[in-house]
């Protein structure tokens, strides 16, 4: 590649429009507003309550991921801001960027503990509860303190 072509391709790359990346604050803020979450949700995020909540994972089920159209940015009222900051502090892991519902925020920490290296495409395509079932099957009974889910391996291929 000669110099001229190199300059042209470099400029073309610079001109290319990148989609605006929504940050995790926008995602959580949108979930909070759309679902009308309040301080009660924080109590569910409490580690003890969160584990107890996970024991309700009884029947094996594959849940579909809800699709959401996030806004480009999110401006929160002061109450919403406090709640969002508290959620971000409580669930401080990279899977939160892929949560679309309050349920998924609750599953987020447990899923990360089960497998901190789930590929992004799976996090985007599958509901976190489904991923938890899958990961529990892989480790054969889940983590200590959490009852094993239903029997049989689940195939997550679409």
């Amino acid at each position: 590649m000669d110099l001229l072509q190199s300059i042209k391709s470099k400029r073309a790359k610079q001109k290319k429009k990148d989609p605006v990346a929504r940050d995790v604050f926008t995602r959580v803020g949108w979930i909070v507003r759309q679902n009308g979450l309040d301080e009660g949700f924080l109590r569910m995020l409490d580690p003890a309550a969160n584990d107890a909540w996970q024991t309700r994972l009884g029947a094996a089920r594959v849940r579909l991921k809800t699709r959401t159209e996030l806004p480009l940015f999110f401006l929160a009222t002061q109450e919403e801001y406090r709640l969002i900051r508290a959620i971000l502090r409580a669930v401080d892991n990279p899977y939160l960027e892929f949560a679309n519902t309050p349920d998924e925020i609750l599953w987020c920490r447990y899923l990360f503990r089960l497998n901190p290296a789930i590929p992004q495409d799976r996090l985007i395509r599958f509901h976190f509860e489904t991923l938890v079932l899958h990961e529990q099957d892989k480790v054969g009974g889940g983590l200590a303190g959490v009852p094993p889910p239903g029997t049989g391996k689940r195939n997550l291929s679409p």
Partner: protein
Amino acid sequence: MRRLLDSNLVFFIESDFVYMPLLLDPSIDREARALSEARGPTRKRAPTGENIIIRQDGMQFVKTFNLFSLVNNFKAINAHEYHRMREACLHQYRLNGDADNVFGDEMLNRILFLILPHFIKTSRGWQRSRPSREELLDFIVSKIDIPPKYVADAAAFLDLQPLENILKSMDDQKPALQPPAGGVLTSSELSAWLQEAVQANILTSEYARLSRALKLRRQLLRAKPEHIALFLYIADFGSIEIAGFGFARMKSPRDYLVYKRTGEYVLKDYYGRPYLFPDCRVAVSTYAPARPFVMEKYKHPFLRGYQSNQEICMKPVETSGKPSPETIIRSLEEGITALRYGYDPRRRNGYHSLDKTYIYIPTITFEEYRI
């Protein structure tokens, strides 16, 4: 703005500025904290309107707009609501109507005193080259049957006493535009204050109009009542027609269509056969480039179709901006000349020919006009 006032938000008012609840994201939060740290924790907040962010009862408010700026620009912000409030206010003081404006309508004066004399011929002819305004108005009044209601209205118009009374009462009741007390204000309280403030503003502007109206009426005291009646008639109807010349007001109050009737006329086709064309009105607008058009549904070799408001096919009169009286006169004359004398049967000029040509494509036919 309406959504803002109908919301259940709480505002903070300081030094005529509205402070709204601050919406946050991490970067705004950082900025707000930096601002607060820069100001220092111990410094007491002075109500000067210089504070960008105010903390009150655990809430943060950010400086937005000036209340008086909102009041002064309310007409542009919410034209419909402003119009409704203005109508209610004018009705309260019996100031509705357009009667006063018509006397100061420059375009109307040009039409009456510069364009009309060119097209109207009296039985004796004008005695001098240019008739006076009084003579012209006398002539127009003699040609138009003005209903008695307007003659009575003219007498009332020239009676200044009621107007002076209204002005005096407005002087007494004129509300002073006071800003609301500083501090926390609900949206309904802000909305109520805004209503009062806009009403006061309207009254102030109408006060000026009323003063101007009174001044104008004092100047008109020496005018003949029938002349005043003529202007009131025009203010109501917006149009008059005398001997084939006339004008009609458009939706915009100071724009008019000036027209002249062609009368019946005869054109001949290639074989010399005559066609009698009916009367039509050739018009020019005072608000756009002077291009003559036919107001009625009409067909002619110089008109593209058979419909109303068609421009006449001719070389446009050169103008820039709004046409002058001379341009309007010239355009009307050229438009009428084009219709009556512009068609050349040998050349069959224009969009259509009167007779059917060898290669005949049926578009507009003139058979029914043949005599």
